């Protein structure tokens, strides 16, 4: 009995921790809708955002500088050369499952490439683009 309860608790807590990509899409979209009523995430806008040259960092002009144009392809760190697993969750299943990790990398990469934090709308568009890539 105790074991069963323990297993149950474990299963529940794992569920609480592992999120799905659409959870992030919904959360950021809802946040964006607060300032832009009727906001709906858009993959084409996300693609343009990802490949835009922001002119902030010479070595890291765009998100695609490390993640490539296609979210299903593995990327490459533009400074160190290290291989980066594809962002597409249908290729790399662990993508967009851990809230702390997703927020950490948005914070880091947006500051570096865009020169500021990304807005909830930009994050929602980006995720729509990434999960929609075929």
């Amino acid at each position, binding site marked *: 009995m105790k074991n069963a309860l323990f297993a149950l608790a474990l299963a529940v807590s794992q569920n609480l921790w592992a999120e799905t990509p659409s959870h992030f899409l919904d959360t950021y979209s809802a946040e964006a809708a607060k300032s832009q009523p009727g906001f709906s995430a858009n993959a084409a806008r996300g693609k343009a955002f990802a490949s835009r040259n922001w002119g902030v960092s010479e070595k890291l002009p765009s998100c695609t500088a490390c993640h490539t144009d296609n979210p299903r392809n593995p990327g490459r*760190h533009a*400074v*160190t*050369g*290290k291989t*980066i697993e594809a962002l597409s969750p249908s290729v790399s299943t662990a993508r967009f499952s851990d809230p702390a990790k997703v927020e950490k990398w948005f*914070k*880091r990469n947006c*500051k*570096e490439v865009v020169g500021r934090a990304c807005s909830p709308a930009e994050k929602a568009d980006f995720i729509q683009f990434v999960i929609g890539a075929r």
Partner: protein
Amino acid sequence: MKHLLISLAALAAAPAWAGDHGLPANTPAAYKTECGSCHAAFPPALLAASDWRRTMAGLDKHFGTDASVDARTHAALLAFLERQAGRRAASPGTAEPRFTTGAWFVREHREVPPRVWKDPKVMGPTNCAACHKGADQGRYGERELSVPGMAYREHD
């Protein structure tokens, strides 16, 4: 029986100490996730404890990027790095500690010609995995070496 188990455990731990200067067997998972995403999770023995303290003190401005971690992770990583640090200090003259410009690293890599370091597949010495195929698992032994543009063979 107990002795057998102990020697089995020692055997299992041995590869990490097999003299390839790789990641120790007790490397915390957070070291690989936090310090192994932009580059390989570098073997702690390649810098001295005082260097690692400097590296860890400046993570928010780490080689032009923000590599900061939360306070608990920071304490755990620093303790691990101090415990496993080597005696080789970073090369002097760099603002942030580097081992790739240090005498030991340069000597170990003396057979790598300049054109190979500049090869687009390599991009520079920090891309360990370009040549050390086991780098993501912390292994740097000669058996897993494959250098782009260079017919590298183990010497006898």
